[in-house]
């Protein structure tokens, strides 16, 4: 039973560029949430996707956008990258928005902006 898969594992981008991170949820899960974790900090909620729509959003600018596909996989897009966007980006999947059955986190994508 595959868990949450995130790709790529590491990424280096230049300021001003755009980046796309990908997440495949755990089998049986239909909801995907994205979190940003800066070094030495706890994860911060970015947004959640369910039924291919953004359902909730944290305090992140419009430069952060996402998408969910019919197979429940999801993408996180960040435009006009800033140095401060350097972080570990975590994807969490669950069954339904309420997380019945629990949340499963992926291993994350480490984004470095130079």
């Amino acid at each position, binding site marked *: 039973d595959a868990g949450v898969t995130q790709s790529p594992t590491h990424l280096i981008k230049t300021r001003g560029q755009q980046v796309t991170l990908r997440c495949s949820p755990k089998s049986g899960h239909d909801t995907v949430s994205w979190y940003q974790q800066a070094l030495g900090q*706890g*994860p911060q909620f970015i947004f959640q996707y369910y039924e291919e729509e953004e359902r909730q959003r944290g305090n992140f600018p419009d430069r952060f956008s996402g998408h969910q596909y019919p197979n429940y996989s999801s993408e996180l897009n960040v435009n006009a990258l800033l140095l401060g966007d350097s972080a570990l980006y975590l994807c969490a999947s669950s069954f339904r928005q309420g997380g019945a059955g629990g949340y499963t986190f992926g291993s994350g994508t480490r984004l470095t902006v130079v």
Partner: protein
Amino acid sequence: SQQGEEDPQALSIQEGENATMNCSYKTSINNLQWYRQNSGRGLVHLILIRSNEREKHSGRLRVTLDTSKKSSSLLITASRAADTASYFCATTEYNFNKFYFGSGTKLNVKP
């Protein structure tokens, strides 16, 4: 902000000792969960305690919840070197599905 705070920020103990870390939060919660993170990688779910529960056990883990004080504690008994990691508490509010994480406690268990 709902975000919790863990205390202490860092903890160093000898193998075999018990480790206790605390979490405080600010508003009413639906449940509180504890997660472990090794070397900045993914989060591993340890235990969930609901707002109407006061104590829960799972193996060497014991979690307490005091909703009147808006605080929780995680006790790891008979610690092992493999327990070395960062530990985070995460809360969820009623009708909301996002987690609010604290800044974590970095535990170092020396062999």
